[in-house]
């Protein structure tokens, strides 16, 4: 990042602070099958008059196009914040169509899904340049030290943009949000089950506090 760009970035952050921007464009990021779309659907269900963001499936890369929902007003802690939320395709460094065939897809279906998934990853990366903050969704039953998590966190830190880690799937017995906290102690984290809706009120409070 050059000097001019760095200066522009710092100036933009100060302008936002001075005028207390109350609308933010927030991206839901994370590896495939972390529960991004399940959480996006939950947020839309709780704060709009209906609809969903996308389909949910056990097969990785179900979301292969970014979807934006505008103008969600989240009220928490006695204040409100207007959000545009962007549900992004899962980030990955490798995509092998044979992995999809293990879920019962035909070879043709698996290859089509693989092609679309690669485009989805590129789309998710492009969206990083157009956001005010990120909810990084992690599956708390999995090892948090994945390169996808490291890369997303590194990019948000480099851009000096707010990041909130969401430790999802705490309804599962093997969930360990503490492992995520230990891996990335420098960032705020909220533990939830997007599927069951447990602790999402705490997430909304954290969103209202963190992204204004």
């Amino acid at each position: 990042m050059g000097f001019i760009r760095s200066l522009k970035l710092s100036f933009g952050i100060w302008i936002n602070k001075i005028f207390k921007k109350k609308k933010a464009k927030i991206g839901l990021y994370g590896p495939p099958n972390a529960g991004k779309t399940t959480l996006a659907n939950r947020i839309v269900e709780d704060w709009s008059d209906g609809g969903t963001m996308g389909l949910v499936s056990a097969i990785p890369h179900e979301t292969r196009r970014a979807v934006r929902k505008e103008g969600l007003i989240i009220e928490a802690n006695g204040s409100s914040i207007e959000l545009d939320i962007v549900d992004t395709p899962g980030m990955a460094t490798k995509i092998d169509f044979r992995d999809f065939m293990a879920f019962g897809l035909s070879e043709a279906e698996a290859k089509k899904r693989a092609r679309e998934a690669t485009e989805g990853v590129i789309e998710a990366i492009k969206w990083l340049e157009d956001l005010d903050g990120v909810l990084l969704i992690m599956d708390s039953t999995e090892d948090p030290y994945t390169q996808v998590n490291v890369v997303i966190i590194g990019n948000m830190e480099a851009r000096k943009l707010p990041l909130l880690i969401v430790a999802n799937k705490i309804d599962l017995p093997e969930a360990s949000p503490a492992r995520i906290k230990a891996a990335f102690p420098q960032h705020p984290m909220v533990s939830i089950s997007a599927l069951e809706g447990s602790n999402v009120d705490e997430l909304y409070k954290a969103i209202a506090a963190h992204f204004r």
Partner: protein
Amino acid sequence: MREVHMDLISGEKLDRLTSMEKIRLILDKVKTGRIVVLENGLTPEEEVRLIEMTMTEIRLDEFSGIEIESYPAKKGGSFLDKILGKSVKGRLTVIGPANQLRTIEKDRYQISTKVSVGD
């Protein structure tokens, strides 16, 4: 006996390359089956560009992507680095073809990987 070709690239060499040259160098090596170890790693922005380029080069029956592991980027650097926007430093990074390099374990201080050489 099958052999594994590893390229350990020094920080001095990486410092002389532009971001795009680093990414091209890495992908060209990895696509021929080599394991690449970078002494200083890549910046977070370079890493995300590497993932983007990797996605454009995936070919269904030939190249399924990369396995990449590094430690979280280090903040710091001199005052001048901060002024120039270089306050986030990349760290030791290992990159290889996704079908050959597999991460066994990773934590804040150690990365363990396994390399399979195929049939």
